């Protein structure tokens, strides 16, 4: 009998003692937290991507409850999250338009020359350190996929041509790839934007044509052909007034180097369509 009693009592006793200590500790050491922080944290995407500028979703929730930031500051969460947060906090929320990342460069391996051999760390930021990278065009995408690695949602991948592709279903427009790109060649465009010029080179036609077959040459045919005068030239690059634009597509058709795009058509889809058209 004794051999059963000792283990039961000693372990039971130890367990009870530890449990008592924990219960006491829980009472004494309880941290009073606004219950809304937990609710908000649950409503957030939970990706801890830091696009809002805070170290993780929980911190963001704490700042929200403290009233220091606006619910729409969580871009990855989008409209649904902002509304959910608004409900929890009991505030009106203005919902923004969904945003997507777009790479403002169409000069992949097929279109653009390289000006040197690069042997080094396979990272755009590293390549930048060596005279701005090995691409023929100094303003273009280097293709070492630093942006792809930086995306916390896995919404990017490199295509066969050496340019990043963006998956619109997973891209939340958080803008982390924009920060990561050392060439600043990625922009975040709104869902309502109708036309973009997918080239970042402000150089003259001669300079651009020497290295890239799809770069904008600043011919200003787009501005001339636009029926509503929504395009003006800023140096050698067109600037499009998205409010004025009626999405007629004339500028896209007229552009001799194919540098203009409809950003709402998924980039991958667009290239496939072109291929099918012949």
């Amino acid at each position, binding site marked *: 009998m004794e051999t059963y009693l000792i283990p039961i009592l000693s372990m039971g006793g130890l367990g009870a003692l530890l*449990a008592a200590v924990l219960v006491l500790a829980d009472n004494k050491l309880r941290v009073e937290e606004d219950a809304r922080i937990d609710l908000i944290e649950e409503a957030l995407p939970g990706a801890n991507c830091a696009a809002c500028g805070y170290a993780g979703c929980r911190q963001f929730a704490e700042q929200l409850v403290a009233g220091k930031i606006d619910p729409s500051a969580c871009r990855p969460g989008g409209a649904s999250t902002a509304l959910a947060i608004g409900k929890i906090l009991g505030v009106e929320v203005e919902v923004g338009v969904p945003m997507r990342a777009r790479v403002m460069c169409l000069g992949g391996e097929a279109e653009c020359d390289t000006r040197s051999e690069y042997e080094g760390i396979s990272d755009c930021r590293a390549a930048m350190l060596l005279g701005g990278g090995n691409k023929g065009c100094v303003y273009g995408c280097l293709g070492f996929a630093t942006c792809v690695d930086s995306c916390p949602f*896995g919404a990017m991948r490199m295509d066969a041509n050496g340019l990043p592709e963006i*998956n619109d279903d997973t891209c939340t427009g958080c803008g982390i790839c924009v920060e990561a790109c050392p060439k600043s060649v990625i922009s975040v465009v709104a869902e309502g934007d109708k036309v973009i010029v997918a080239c970042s080179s402000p150089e003259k036609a001669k300079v651009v044509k020497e290295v890239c077959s799809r770069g904008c040459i600043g011919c200003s045919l787009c501005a001339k052909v636009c029926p509503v005068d929504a395009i003006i030239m800023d140096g050698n690059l067109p600037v499009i007034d998205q409010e004025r634009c009626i999405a007629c597509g004339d500028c896209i058709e007229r552009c001799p180097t194919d540098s203009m795009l409809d950003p709402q058509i998924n980039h991958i889809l667009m290239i496939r369509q072109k291929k099918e058209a012949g």
Partner: protein
Amino acid sequence: MFQEFKKGLWSENAVFRQLLGMCPTLAVTNSGINGLFMGLATLFVLVGSGLTVSIFKNSIPKQVRLAAYVVIIATFVTMADLFLAGSVPEISKSLGPYVPLIVVNCLVLGRAEAFSSKNRLVPSVADAAGMGLGFTIALVALGIVRELIGSGAVFGVQLLGGWFEPWLIMMLPPGAFISLGIMIGLINHFTDRRLAARHQHWE
């Protein structure tokens, strides 16, 4: 139900795919027989704890969930340890303190937490048995490799003759790490799973 059993053997093998239970895998696989007994002990603990957790899953309050699981696991581990010490004392001695360490084997707690606590008795036992068997196979495989190259013997039977200069390093920690690393690399290479994942197909 056979699916639950099968997945632990290869597709979700604890050592090669999930990378759980690394500590005993590296520590005791300096010979095939050690690996075998460690694997069997873990199998016993897995099945025993999986059974128990599955039976009592609804009676354990949420706050003490983890504590309850580890106590159950510790009980079965003590049973296994004492049994080994009694029946195969030589091997028990060479396994040393790594048998009690099955208590904190991430595989055991992981299965209890992820599967047994949410499923009925029979699937839980099948899952536990599959995982345990897969674990044993992995340990024996690694043990055979290390023992063969490290001493020329397999399960104590000298296979490679005097011409073979044993690589003592295989019996020591560096050899354990490196041989497991190479094995995982080879398995990944031949099963192509990692490579498929890298291509990130969205279709």
